[in-house]
């Protein structure tokens, strides 16, 4: 192994060109410049952060000018206690035993799996984590934390229509959510 000879490092003596004019190296000036750099750096970071925030901000959902109504058909088509899937709208039209209508979202409120209707057991059972919902969309078996989302239903002249564009969150089933034929 070769041993390197130690040579003293010469630091070049720099004479400031404006020596004598003011005190360019004064602590005030240094700390001011330091703070200026810091401020500029923070401003840059803020700008970049703002750009990132705007870029990744959720965009407002563009809705069709006219609501997306799906005409389900005459009230009589749906016997009380029946559940009818509407694949074009991702919901089930449920007619409660008392004759009222609910449009229940097909999506499990737990993690978003798609729910099949079990005719025999009269419940929606989630294949992912075993949550179950009754015909009103109410939770029968957790882990689902809240009742199934609803789509607005309107009944005019005995014809059932569903606004398939606006699912509405709810905590539990309440009677006011049911649309009843006059």
């Amino acid at each position, binding site marked *: 192994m070769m041993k390197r000879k130690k040579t003293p490092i010469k630091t070049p003596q720099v004479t400031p060109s404006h020596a004598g004019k003011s005190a360019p190296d004064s602590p005030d000036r240094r700390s001011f410049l330091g703070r200026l750099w810091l401020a500029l750096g923070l401003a840059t970071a803020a700008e970049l952060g703002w750009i990132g925030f705007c870029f990744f901000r*959720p965009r407002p959902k563009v809705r069709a000018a006219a609501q997306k109504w799906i005409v389900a058909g005459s009230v009589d088509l749906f016997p009380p206690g029946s559940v009818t899937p509407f694949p074009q709208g991702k919901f089930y039209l449920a007619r409660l035993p008392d004759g009222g209508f609910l449009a229940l979202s097909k999506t499990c409120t*737990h*993690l*978003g*799996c798609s729910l099949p209707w079990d005719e025999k057991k009269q419940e929606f059972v989630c*294949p*992912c984590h075993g949550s179950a919902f009754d015909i009103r969309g109410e*939770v029968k078996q*957790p*882990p689902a934390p809240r009742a199934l989302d609803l789509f607005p239903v309107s009944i005019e002249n005995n014809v059932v229509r569903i606004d398939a564009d606006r699912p509405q969150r709810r905590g539990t089933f309440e009677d006011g959510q049911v649309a009843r034929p006059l």
Partner: protein
Amino acid sequence: MTEPTEFNLARRIWRSIFPAPLIPVDDRDRRRAVLETLLLHIHPPTVPARALRFTHTWGLGGMGLVLFVLLAGTGAMLMLAYRPNPAEAYASVQALIQETGFGPFVRNIHAWSANLLLVVAFLHLLRVFFTSGFHGPRQFNWVIGLLLLCCAMAANFTGYLLPWDQLSYWAITIVTGMLAYVPLAGPWLQNLARGGEELGAAALNNFYTLHTTIIPVLFLLLLPWHFFRVRKAGGVVLPHRHDEELPEPPERVNTLPDLVLREFTVALVLIAALAAFALLVDAPLGSQANPGMSPNPTKAPWYFQGFQELLLHFHPVFAVCVLPLAGVLFFVLIPYLRYDSDPSGVPFVSPNGLKITRFAALTALVAVPALVLLDELSGASARLATWMPPLIGNGLIPCLMLAGLLFGFRQALKRRYAPNRNEWVQAFVVLLLTGFLLLTLISVLFRGPGMALSWPL
């Protein structure tokens, strides 16, 4: 130049590219070769002889690197065959399997390497942890390693969606569904990941970009940093018994050939085994994704199934946010906790530490399946969630029970083994990791239709 020039043009060109001697004949040549070759230069010219013991490192770090290289190579090939939009994705994967020469082989190598990388990275973490390789100058490298593990999981997860089959579509649906339960930022995070309310073209585009650009770039930044820090720390920790003094200075051997040959052997054996496996076993591909129908049961990718099992027993806020965050925070802080000693290189800290490790693993082995079974048979967490607000019923209450059990474990450990700080940390890490592994196993093997417990066939 006063040296006589070579006449052979080919030789001169070769020398200009590789200045080191091609076949080193003596030690000086070999050291020069290490210093002057870009790839070998991640090693010092000589390494401590002890560091080479195979049963110390098991070659796991090197295996991770080999898998990364394989993944990058096969990944680039797959990118040329794949079309990242929902209309064509599934068909392009099918075409790759049915019509492309060696298409299934390349796809299998990619898929199995990706899964194996997670296993290898996890084992590497265990090796480093159980040889106390996170003290002193290696503290931050532990954190970089954790970041790399996160990158490996993210790469795996984003790649999982790309075939656009039933398996991937619904697995990604439920895992991105978990995001919505993160307090405050949840819905925004979910929307960001999915690029909309449900999985569609935007989500596929997001996942493809992450999988083929963003995560690989992160890897390329983090990997050299990881290696650099290993080198700056003087290589791996040196294995020794707890009552054994390391000779000072340690006996050193040449990197070339002693270390390089070992690395080369591990790499070749690994590649050969992978190739054989990829020829025999095909990576799964379900039927094309159908957003209207979830298969039963729908499971997350296996490395997230521990969380899926937690979800069956805990409120989602706890299962996907509070508990995992607490776990991650604990792991990041491991090198920065206060310790009684620096047993770098001693397996399991001490003989007492080994006993404690066995005790902790055994505790988890009994307690976790027992708790899962108890909850399943009694339906306790489900019933509690209907009796009171779910956040308390199957959130706060089971967490408090868990804390109580941990306290019991602590008392038992204190009485039986009187551990020091190093052994305490080791005990809780073992308990945590064994528990999580068991949850994963339960979910992978013992969860059937409707996620009910069932016997695997």
